[in-house]
């Protein structure tokens, strides 16, 4: 452990022999560096050591071992040393050598050794008595050591170094697994850190070791409350109050829990009890005030706040809440005065700014209000309210774009926008009439449209104890991505679906030779012979020219117009007729509508894949049911869907086929969130997708010849750039917080669209690649260090 403790031996010179015996018996402890002892026998005679030097030695020690005998009780010096030790609050251990009158001496208030003060002379075997003394001293030392370590932990807490404090407490627990206060204190620190489940675990342990410890119950209750487990919290508060009916904070906490449940009367009752117990604590009045305030008894609330302010005149919280009470009463000036004071007390008080903003806004001083909201946002960008409020203020100034940005940010920060809007205004018309504005349609929708929770939340797997198997990191990230945009199913107007069923494929799908023969014998065949692809033919980005054709004999076809085809299909009449369904034997189950579906621009992907494999098809190819089709002209979506972020999200929400393969399933693909990005950003992603499409069908790109390896690296690098852009689209704040930008530096490069590159396209791409691959280019740097962002590490499987 740490430094040895210093022990001072007080003895009468008549007991020198026993003193030496004691020192001998403490030798082991000295060798183990747990204790060093000193007594005045170590002074060289003739040093002329003064009494005050010896007393200084006492002051310097950690504990005083007092050899109790008739002689020492009579000794002036011994009693001086003892008095000094008591004065300095040094731990005293009396060691009773012989029968004497110590019980009537002040020594009797200390725990004596040997046990129960049995004098050493009385032991049958004196060495047994000494051993008893040594064991007793060792126990005391160990207690003192952990005590001082505990103290170190508490110091760390005060300094705000919570992790170090936890490490120290954990160390104590390692040494002494029954150290109640190490658990208790660690619990408190975990609570401070917001790690409530760990805190609860420590309080459990504390309670197990010290079953009637009301404080532990109260704290555990608070941790449960913070974790949202109100029922458990009540149980603990009740227990704490039962154990200690004068536990003010247990009443306050239970009161707040009732408050949270909406049971204001019970809350007020508990707070009143707390006030009865300690009417000098501002917190008690403050909390009851809050309960009155929320119950609607504003006047009573203000009275309580006044009392709280009287007791604690410099607490910004109280002013802020009294301000809101005044606001409810319509006392605008008093409210502003309180908020001003709260801000004066705490210039970083987000709520005060936000609330003062509301007062200004209600008072028609919109610009002042905006100023306050902006301050609030500057202080804390994670809250939804100031954004929403500023958004509403912008609406009144008809600054639609600014309003929209703010309201969207509020939404992203977790605020329920429609609920918020309705709590202030009856409906859009009422709002428009009140402020004489006409809201643009999209904003009106934003304010009122409640997103249906159409998709079930992802299943969370629980282990035997009911705890999620997945780490909270993963679960949170999944939900964060989900909330970062609107589902693909809503974003895409037309319906996405699989290709068509072509069984028996040997009948309906033909190769080039057969196709040429069919056309040669009757030209009408061309009309219904469509270039066709299977899922397994698909690659990322780009669709190869098909080498097969589908006989598109849709339902209701006038088959007689295509005599050669009919003749050809007859060869397969057997298997064709065995199919179920209402189609004629020569018909596919598809209808003419499907032709329209295939004709439009679309994204396609195979039904099983191990990496996201979407490709852009603008050529109107036909697909079997092993492919999934998303009708859209927005090629940037292909970049989004092939990104690592979407791959991670998709593998999270869908069922994985095996370890490696994913299966495309409509209900999951439609859940993929499409983040909110500007049209310029979409265009940029689209441009890179176009590059990739072009590159993907260049011969050198996928050549096995290592001489062309740099071209392949170029392809991979552009794909990586898409990953970067998509990360920024989904996790903008996280990336920007660590100074990782992709859109901006890439937009500044003003890359040419593929179709504008006239001369040697490949050379131009190589030049572009070398430019942005340069080790100092921000794109290269940011890609290289992208995984310093924690969420990216989760997605890339590095945590």
């Amino acid at each position: 452990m740490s430094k040895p403790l210093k022990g001072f031996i007080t003895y009468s010179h008549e007991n020198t022999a026993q003193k030496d015996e004691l020192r001998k018996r403490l030798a082991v402890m000295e060798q183990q560096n747990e204790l060093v002892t000193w007594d005045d026998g170590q002074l060289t005679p003739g040093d002329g050591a003064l009494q005050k030097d010896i007393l200084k030695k006492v002051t310097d020690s950690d504990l005083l071992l007092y050899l109790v005998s008739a002689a020492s009780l009579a000794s002036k010096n011994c009693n001086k040393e003892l008095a000094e030790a008591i004065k300095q609050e040094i731990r005293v251990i009396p060691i009773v050598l012989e029968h004497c009158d110590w019980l009537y001496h002040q020594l009797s208030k200390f725990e004596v050794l040997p046990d129960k003060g049995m004098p050493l002379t009385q032991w049958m075997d004196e060495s047994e008595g000494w051993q008893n003394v040594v064991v007793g001293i060792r126990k005391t030392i160990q207690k003192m050591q952990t005590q001082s370590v505990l103290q170190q932990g508490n110091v760390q807490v005060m300094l705000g170094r919570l992790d170090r404090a936890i490490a120290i407490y954990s160390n104590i627990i390692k040494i002494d697994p029954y150290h109640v206060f190490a658990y208790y204190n660690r619990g408190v620190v975990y609570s401070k850190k917001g790690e409530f489940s760990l805190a609860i675990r420590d309080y459990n342990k504390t309670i197990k070791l010290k079953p009637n410890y009301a404080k532990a119950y109260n704290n555990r209750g608070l941790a449960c409350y913070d974790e949202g487990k109100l029922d458990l919290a009540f149980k603990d508060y009740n227990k704490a109050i039962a154990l200690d009916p004068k536990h003010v904070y247990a009443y306050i906490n239970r009161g707040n829990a009732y408050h949270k449940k909406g049971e204001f009367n019970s809350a007020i009752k508990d707070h009143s009890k707390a006030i009865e117990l300690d009417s000098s604590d501002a917190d008690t009045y403050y909390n009851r005030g809050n309960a009155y305030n929320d119950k609607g008894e504003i006047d009573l609330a203000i009275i309580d706040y006044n009392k709280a302010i009287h007791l604690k005149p410099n607490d910004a919280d109280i002013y802020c809440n009294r301000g809101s009470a005044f606001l409810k009463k319509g006392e605008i000036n008093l409210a502003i005065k309180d908020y001003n004071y709260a801000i004066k007390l705490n210039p970083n008080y987000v709520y005060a700014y936000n609330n003062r903003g509301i007062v200004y806004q209600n008072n028609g001083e919109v610009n002042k209000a905006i100023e306050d909201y902006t301050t609030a946002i500057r202080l804390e960008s994670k809250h939804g309210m100031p954004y929403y409020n500023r958004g509403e203020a912008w609406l009144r100034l008809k600054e639609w774009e600014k309003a929209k940005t703010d309201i969207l940010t509020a939404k992203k920060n977790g605020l329920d926008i429609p609920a918020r809007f309705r709590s202030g205004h009856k409906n859009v018309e009422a709002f428009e009439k009140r402020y004489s504005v006409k809201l643009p349609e999209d904003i009106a929708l934003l304010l009122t449209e409640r997103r249906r929770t159409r998709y079930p939340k992802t299943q969370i797997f629980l282990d035997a104890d009911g705890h999620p198997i997945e780490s909270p990191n993963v679960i949170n990230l999944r939900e964060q991505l989900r909330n970062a945009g609107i589902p693909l199913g809503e974003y895409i107007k037309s319906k996405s679906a699989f290709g068509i069923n072509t069984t028996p494929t040997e009948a309906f799908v033909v190769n080039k030779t057969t196709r040429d023969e069919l056309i040669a014998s009757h030209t009408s065949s061309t009309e219904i012979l469509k270039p066709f692809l299977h899922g397994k033919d698909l690659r990322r980005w780009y669709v190869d020219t098909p080498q097969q054709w589908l006989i598109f004999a849709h339902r209701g076809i006038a088959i007689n117009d295509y005599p050669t085809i009919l003749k050809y299909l007859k060869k397969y009449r057997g298997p064709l007729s065995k199919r179920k369904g209402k189609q004629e034997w020569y018909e596919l189950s598809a209808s003419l509508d499907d032709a329209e579906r295939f004709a439009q621009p679309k994204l396609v992907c195979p039904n099983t894949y191990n990496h996201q494999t979407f490709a852009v098809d603008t050529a109107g190819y036909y697909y079997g049911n092993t492919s999934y089709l998303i009708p859209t002209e927005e090629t940037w979506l292909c970049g989004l869907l092939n990104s690592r972020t979407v791959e991670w999200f998709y593998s999270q929400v869908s069922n994985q086929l095996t370890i490696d393969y994913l299966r495309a399933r409509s209900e999951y693909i439609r859940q993929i969130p499409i983040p909110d990005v500007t049209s310029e950003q979409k265009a940029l992603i689209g441009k890179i997708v176009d590059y990739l499409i072009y590159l993907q069908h260049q011969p050198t790109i996928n050549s096995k010849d290592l001489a062309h390896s740099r071209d392949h690296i170029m392809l991979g690098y552009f794909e990586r750039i898409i990953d970067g852009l998509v990360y920024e689209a989904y996790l903008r704040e996280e990336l920007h917080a660590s100074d990782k930008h992709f859109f901006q530096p890439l937009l500044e490069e003003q890359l040419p669209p593929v179709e504008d590159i006239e001369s040697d396209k490949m050379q131009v791409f190589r030049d572009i690649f070398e430019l942005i691959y340069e080790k100092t280019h921000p794109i290269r740097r940011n890609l290289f260090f992208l995984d310093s962002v924690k969420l990216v590490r989760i997605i890339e499987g590095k945590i």
Partner: protein
Amino acid sequence: MKITNIEIKNFRAFPKTYEINLSKTGKNLLVYGENGSGKSSLYLALKYFLESSKDSNDESNKRNDFESHQNIFSEDPGHIILSLRADQWSKKDTYEWSQGVKGETNNELITEASKSNGFLDYKALLETHYLHHKNDTVNLFDLLVKTLMASTVSPLTDRTLADDWDEIQKPYPRKNAKNQIDNLEKRIENFNRELTNRLTELRPTTSDILRKFGYNIDIDFDFQGVTYNRNDKTLDNQQILLKVEFFDTQIPAHHQFLNEAKLSAISIAIYLSSTWIQPESKLKILVLDDVLIGLDMSNRFPVLDILEDYFNDYQIFLTTYDKAWYEIVKQRTDQKYWKYTEFYFKATDKYEIPVCSEDRPYLEKSKEYLNDNDYKSSVIYLRTAFEEIIKRFCEKQKLSVRYCENPKKLTTEDFWQPIKTGKKKDGSPFLENLTINKIEQYRTCVLNPLSHAIIVNVYRREIEEAIKAVEELESSLL
């Protein structure tokens, strides 16, 4: 961003606490140390400190746990604490890595620095000695993939080359598992491309650096790509042949040119260029543990210039066990930018040298070092010898020594005084006045515990005289 202070406690070879202050500007560090003195532990301390930032869910990866590096002689939990500053005017940030504090290094700055490939130790270069010379060719595959470029990061997979290579070497698929074989071959294909690309990228810089070494040559790599042999389940063609092209003259016999020293130079050039071609993190450090040892002295000077040219804004940590080289670097570098430190056997805060690690008397060691012109070591051993003699004498004679709670706090003075003034049983003094005077004289300089700091002013003759005095003391006392 520079490291301004390093505190290492109970980590590997470091018992107790060792602190290296690199001043507010974050100087480069030059360390001289004998083998076993903790040089390599310093190297590993920095390396693992950065790596500890990569939180991993891999249970088997214990390297990130401080516990596995705890000094085995000490139960007191250790730590490594680094202080960093953006520049001398900015605020100091301190990061701790220890058993108890795990998350603190999990920080953007340190994660980014850990991708830098900034660590090279002498073991890597020993491998150049085992390179095969077949038909005048040298195969660099293992050296490059597993050592020199091992921690360079692929722009595509965003993993290190070594990790990509390990991935390929996972148990090979069964013969009929077509999909898995396809996947493996695709991975190999990408690995080949990636490696080819990297070799192309680093070639110009490597040649440039070699020219600074004074070799007017151009090097190239012949890499045909690793292939998977489905029948034998082996990875064939693990071969990167070194091709050397001479500008001035054609020297066909490579093996004559490619001696070990030149291969060492080439290895260093490859390592430095593969580090240089990567993007740079804010905290740029380059730690070279004894790597120059394989080079001829004449080839070591250029390295200093190369570091200056290519890694000017890096913080350099050089260690060496070559005393002469250490002194030369000291001469050639500016102490405004460099800090010089020496590690000795088990040397701790007060240069106490534990008896157990020694097999020869201190006095002999002291003389030996004097012969090697290593004055500093000589003096340290001499002082230790002196202390040992007087302590032993006090114990033997049971002389009463000043009381001190912590025996370690006893100073030489506490032992010396009773000897100086004490008398034998017959009443004569322990020592003659002449001996006392000599010892007193050298105690102020040579035998002073702080002698380390003022060593520059100690002359050889003084040390010789001091050794004599201590020898005299020994013969009178023991």
